[in-house]
C-alpha cells in the first residue's frame, strides 16, 4: 500500500492575464504537518482550491493519494478533510444536521455517524450548540463547526486554509491543539497560514510560495539554516528560572554558537547545523538534567527566513 500523498505537477492557474500559480511542483508524503506560507495573492488558496476541485487548473495536475483531484474527484477526496476559506453551512440546519450531511457524503457508516459527529463537536468545544441552528452563529463558531466537519470520517489527509482565521485567541489555541493531536494520529496535514509562530509551533516542514512559484520546501530547521548561513535557532523553556550558571552550562554544549535569555524561564539558542545537531543538543541538555520542558525552532528564525526568501510584493 502507498503512503498518503499530495502532489502538484506543473500546476498553473491563470485568471485572465494574472498568473496566480506558475508551474508548481510539490510532493508531500507521509504523516506530517506542512505549513504553506506566502504573502497575500501568492497562490496558497488557489493551490488548495485546485486540490479540492473548487477551481480547475489552467495546466498541470493535482493528485491526492495518486488520484487526480479533478478527473477522479471522489477517489481523490474520499479520505480528505478540508477547510477552505470560511464555509457557510445551510443556515436552517443545526451542526448535527450539517455534519450528518458531510458524514453521509463521505460514507461514514450509520452506526458510527452519531458518535463521530458528537466527538468532532466535542473536539471543537461546540457540543452545547450541536442542535441549535447555524444561521445565528458567529464567524468563529461557524469556523469551529467547519473544522469539526473536516475531522469527520477520520481523514488521512487534511487540507486547511488558514484554519485559525476568525477565531478568538482561545479558539486559535484550541485549533492548534487539535492539529497537534491529529499529527499524533499520523495524518498528512497541509495548512496555509499567515501566522509564522503558528506554523513554527505546529508544522514539521514548510513550503513557501511567492508570485505563484514555489520558493522553498524543506524542514523548518533546514529552511531557517539556509538563510542564517547554516545557523539555526531554537527556543528552550525550563521549569526553573534561567540564571547565569545555566546559560554557562548550555553555552558549552557542542554546536551551540550563542545564547539569549528571552523570558524568565526561556532561552534562545543559536547553533550550527541541521536536525541532527538540534537533536544532539537536546539530548545533551536532557543528560545535564537542567529541567527542559519544551524545545522548538524559534518563531523569529522562521520569520527571518520568510523575510529573506519572500521579497516585498508591494
Amino acid at each position, binding site marked *: 500500500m502507498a503512503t498518503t500523498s499530495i502532489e502538484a505537477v506543473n500546476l498553473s492557474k491563470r485568471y485572465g492575464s494574472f498568473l496566480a500559480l506558475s508551474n508548481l511542483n510539490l510532493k508531500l508524503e507521509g504523516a506530517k504537518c506542512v505549513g504553506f506560507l506566502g504573502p497575500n495573492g501568492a497562490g496558497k488558496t488557489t493551490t488548495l482550491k485546485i486540490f*479540492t476541485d473548487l477551481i480547475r487548473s489552467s495546466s498541470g495536475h493535482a493528485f491526492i493519494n495518486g488520484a487526480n483531484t479533478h478527473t477522479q474527484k471522489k477517489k481523490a477526496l474520499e479520505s480528505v478533510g478540508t477547510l477552505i476559506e470560511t464555509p457557510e453551512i445551510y443556515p436552517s*440546519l443545526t451542526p448535527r444536521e*450539517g455534519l450528518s450531511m*458531510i458524514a453521509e457524503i463521505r460514507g461514514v457508516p450509520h452506526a458510527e455517524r452519531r458518535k463521530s459527529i458528537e466527538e468532532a463537536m466535542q473536539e471543537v468545544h461546540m457540543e452545547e450548540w450541536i442542535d441549535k441552528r447555524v444561521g445565528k452563529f458567529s464567524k468563529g463558531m461557524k469556523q469551529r463547526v467547519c473544522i469539526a466537519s473536516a475531522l469527520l470520517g477520520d481523514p488521512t489527509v487534511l487540507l486547511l486554509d488558514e484554519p485559525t482565521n476568525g477565531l478568538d485567541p482561545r479558539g486559535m489555541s484550541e485549533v492548534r491543539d487539535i492539529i497537534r493531536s491529529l499529527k499524533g494520529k499520523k495524518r498528512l496535514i497541509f495548512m496555509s497560514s499567515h501566522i509564522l509562530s503558528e506554523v513554527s509551533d505546529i508544522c514539521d516542514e514548510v513550503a513557501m510560495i511567492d508570485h505563484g512559484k514555489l520558493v522553498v520546501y524543506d524542514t523548518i530547521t533546514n529552511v531557517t539554516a539556509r538563510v542564517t548561513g547554516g545557523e539555526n535557532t531554537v527556543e528552550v523553556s525550563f521549569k526553573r528560572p534561567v540564571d547565569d550558571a545555566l546559560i554557562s552550562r548550555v553555552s558549552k554544549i557542542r554546536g551551540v554558537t550563542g545564547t539569549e535569555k528571552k523570558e524568565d524561564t526561556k532561552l534562545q539558542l543559536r547553533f550550527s547545523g541541521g536536525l541532527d545537531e538540534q537533536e544532539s543538543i537536546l539530548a545533551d541538555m536532557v543528560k545535564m538534567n537542567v529541567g527542559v520542558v519544551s524545545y522548538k525552532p524559534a518563531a523569529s528564525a522562521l520569520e527571518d527566513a520568510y523575510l529573506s526568501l519572500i521579497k516585498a510584493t508591494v
Partner: protein
Amino acid sequence: MNQTEIQSADKVPSSLTQVGIAMKYTFLDYFRSRRFFILLIITLVISALLTILVGYYRPQSFLGDPTLDVTTRALTFYSSWWGSGVTFVIILGGIFFGGDAISGEFQNKTGYFAVPNPIRRSSIYIGKWLSAFTAATIIFAIFATITLGNGLYYFGANVPIQFGQSLLYAWFYLAAVMGFTFFFSSLFKSSSMSILITAILFLFVFSLIETLVSTLVNIEPWFILTYGAGIIGNILNPNGFPAHIVHTPEGRAGGFILTTYNAYVPEGLVIIGLYFIITAALGLILFERKEFT
C-alpha cells in the same frame, strides 16, 4: 493497518445515493426557511381571498351560468380558479426556491462546505433541484387541494377530467420553471441578481414578447415557455379548447386584426419538456464548470 496507508475500502456512497443525501438536507433547509413560510402564507392568503369572495358574491365568472349543466359550470369554476391562479403560484415557487439555489452556493459560500468533498457537483445540483422542486410541489399541492376543496363544495364529485390533466401539465410546467430558474441561478454569482432577472423574465418579459410577436408580426411564439404553459388554462376552457390561431377584429371599423395563438396540447408539452431538458442541462454544465474564486 498503518494509519498513514490509504484506506482502500470503497466506502463513499454512489453518486445516486449522494443525490438523495444532498436532496434530504437541502430540502430540510428549504422547509425550515423563511421563504417557504412566506410563500405558504402568500398561497394561503390568495386561496382564502378567493374562497371568501366566491363564497360571498357567488360570481358567474367562477360558478358559471346557473342555466347551464353542472359539468360546464364545474369547468368554469376550475378554469377561473385554477387556470388563472396556478401559473402564478408556480412562478413564485420557481423564484423563491430556484432563483438563488446555485448562485447562493457561491455568494453565501455554502458551496465551500459541500463541494470540497468526495461528491460530484452534478449530485449536488440534482439533489438541490429535487429539493427545490419538492418544496415548490408542497405549495403547489396546497393550492390544488384548496381549489379541489372549493370545487367539491360547489359541485360535489363533478370534478372534470380536464382538471386532472391541467394539474399534470401544471406540475410538468413547475419542473420546467424550476429548470429555468436553476439555469439562471447558475449564470450568476449574485443571489439577488439571479432572483431579480428570473422574476422579471417570468412576470413581464415572456408575456410581453409573446404578445408583441403574435400580434405585431403574426409569428407563433413557440419559443416562449409561458406560451407552452397556456395549455394549463386552455384545457379547462368551458367552451372547448380554443383554436390554434384566433383573429379578432379590433378598432372602430374592425380595421386592425389582433392575432393570438394557442399552443396545441402536444405542442405545449413539447415546449415545456424542451425548456426543462435544455435549461436543466445547461444549468448543470454551468455549475460543473463554474469556479469558486
